[in-house]
């Protein structure tokens, strides 16, 4: 036989050198759990996963594909947990036999790429953002923006508005906020993981939006604050319900999160945009983890719960490093009680 069956020995060779390669410690004792969903939580989740793997060998393979995808995959059973920034209602949770709990709080920040405009220099309001994304405000030197920003050199260029092309919990929180502050927006595109965007460019994930804003001149986008920090992007200040222009930071997110009434939220179904308070950041949001209530693979389910227990109990350091807000102790207790009651 002269067929090129060198393939088989080559495969064996690769497999052999593969298992001894890499710089990870050879600990095949660790399980591998899979998750998918929110890109909002991805920066801190991947940091937790890296620490957790060093600590106990379990690998958390997370695909950052957007909240919509995370919900779909965990409902279909193709991943062990899903992550979404839009909480599911109790009836949908019951229909799919899922448990839901929050794991972190962060903030959604408008980012811009305008020559000469540094981080924190531009001031915007919810209604202005709504008008820009609806195409009513077309240029950066529109009177409405100029009035709010005397002294900022705004070009007469058209605004390239970047939105999410995928099913996004970040979009849900952003559009929920716009619906709260702009009646025109509420009557028009409304809120949701995706809406009927008019014009603009679609980025895939928080990463895609941040990537496009970095690339395209005179662009505007909305991303989770960790992406702003990690990529040194130029963000804008947003006016909150109390009329103050608040800078995004762990403190202003925490001020918003502090007003949330978790005790009375069934299955933790709670959205915290447009929070009251002078220091509250207007577009704060949490990420929720979805796990099956009666998992088929008990070992995997236990591994998932163990990972998130680690995250909410010990992951505060990584969270604050990226300007997320770790959950307060009483909420952590409430979550752990909920899990032991609901996940068998």
């Amino acid at each position, binding site marked *: 036989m002269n067929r090129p069956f060198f393939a088989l020995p080559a495969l064996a060779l690769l497999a052999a050198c593969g298992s001894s*390669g890499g710089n990870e410690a050879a600990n095949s004792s660790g399980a591998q759990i899979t998750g998918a969903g929110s890109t909002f939580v991805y920066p801190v989740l991947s940091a937790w996963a890296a620490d957790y793997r060093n600590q106990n060998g379990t690998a958390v393979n997370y695909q950052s594909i957007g909240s919509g995808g995370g919900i779909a995959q965990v409902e279909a059973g193709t991943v062990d947990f899903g992550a979404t920034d839009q909480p599911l209602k109790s009836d949908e949770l019951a229909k799919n036999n899922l448990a839901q709990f929050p794991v972190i709080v962060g903030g959604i920040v408008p980012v811009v790429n305008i020559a000469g405009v540094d981080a924190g220099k531009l001031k915007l309001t919810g209604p202005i953002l709504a008008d820009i994304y609806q195409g009513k405000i077309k240029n950066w030197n529109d009177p409405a923006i100029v009035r709010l920003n005397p002294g900022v050199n705004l070009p007469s260029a058209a605004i390239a508005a970047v939105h999410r092309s995928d099913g996004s919990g970040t979009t849900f929180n952003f559009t929920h906020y716009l619906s709260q502050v702009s009646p025109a927006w509420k009557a028009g595109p409304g809120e949701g993981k995706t809406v009927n965007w008019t014009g603009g460019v679609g980025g895939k994930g928080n990463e895609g939006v941040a990537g496009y804003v970095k690339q395209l001149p005179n662009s505007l986008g909305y991303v989770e604050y960790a992406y702003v920090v990690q990529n040194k992007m130029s963000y804008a200040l947003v006016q909150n319900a109390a009329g103050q222009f608040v800078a995004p930071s762990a403190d202003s997110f925490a001020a918003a999160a502090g007003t949330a009434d978790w005790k009375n939220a069934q299955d933790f179904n709670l959205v915290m945009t447009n929070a009251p308070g002078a220091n509250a950041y207007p577009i704060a949001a949490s990420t929720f983890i979805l796990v099956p209530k009666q998992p088929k693979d008990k070992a995997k389910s236990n591994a998932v719960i163990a990972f998130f227990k680690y995250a909410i109990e010990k992951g505060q350091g990584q969270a604050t490093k990226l300007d997320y807000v770790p959950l307060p102790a009483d909420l952590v207790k409430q979550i752990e009680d909920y899990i032991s009651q609901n996940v068998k």
Partner: protein
Amino acid sequence: MAIRASRRIADVVAFVFATAATTFGLVWLTWILWMTFRQGAAALTPSLFTQMTPPPGSSGGIFNALYGSAVMILLAVVIGTPVGVAAGTYLAEHGRHTRLAAAVSFINDILLSAPSIVIGLFIYELVVRRAGHFSGFAGALSLAIILLPIVVRTTQESLLLIPDTMREAGFALGLPRWRVTRQILYKAAMSAILTGILLGIARIAGETAPLLFTALNNQFWSANLNAPLANLPVVIFQYVMSPYDEWHTLAWAGAFVLTAFVLLLNILVRLIARKGKQG
């Protein structure tokens, strides 16, 4: 007799246009290759081949992606080559003037240029949906389907190039047909079939779309074909769409490795073809 001015002008214009068109094509080629090599070479470090894909914000390498791609390509070759050679043999030998062969040849050429994303969707429906999870195996299957028409075409053409006198000589010696094919024809067509496989490898090495819904991706080291498997094209896709500079650097490095691999294969194929012609 001098020709009319307008005719000469038309001719000069055509000459200039043809030269410009060729320069146009070559300029793009140079620009793309130059940027890939410049950006990629700057990012080439040994850690590229020893470390795994990193989380955003840290440095790392692409070893798991290279490994995953290599394994899936090899598996695709193992699956696709026998089927492709067998089908190509039918088209050239037993079925040479049958209607089945004409139909298969026609359909094969369509599969050759078919959108690879459709093939990814097909394997998703067939394998991933049924199994309930993504897998490197599904990725290898989709690559095998893309490789198959290339191998069929090359086998068919190279077998048809062998003069019938060789077949007749074999029959005259009393050999059964399958022996003629195996011992005479395959041996003679070996280098041509091999070049077909190499060209096929060059093609599937760069295919991204079918892997997006079959093998997905894996940021950790994994040799498990029954789970999502890291691979170079999807890693490049993910990293390019991100805002992180370290990921962009890794993407360029990965692009450099991929392009160099594909170009080297193409050069290798030409060398083999030239040696085959001389021999």
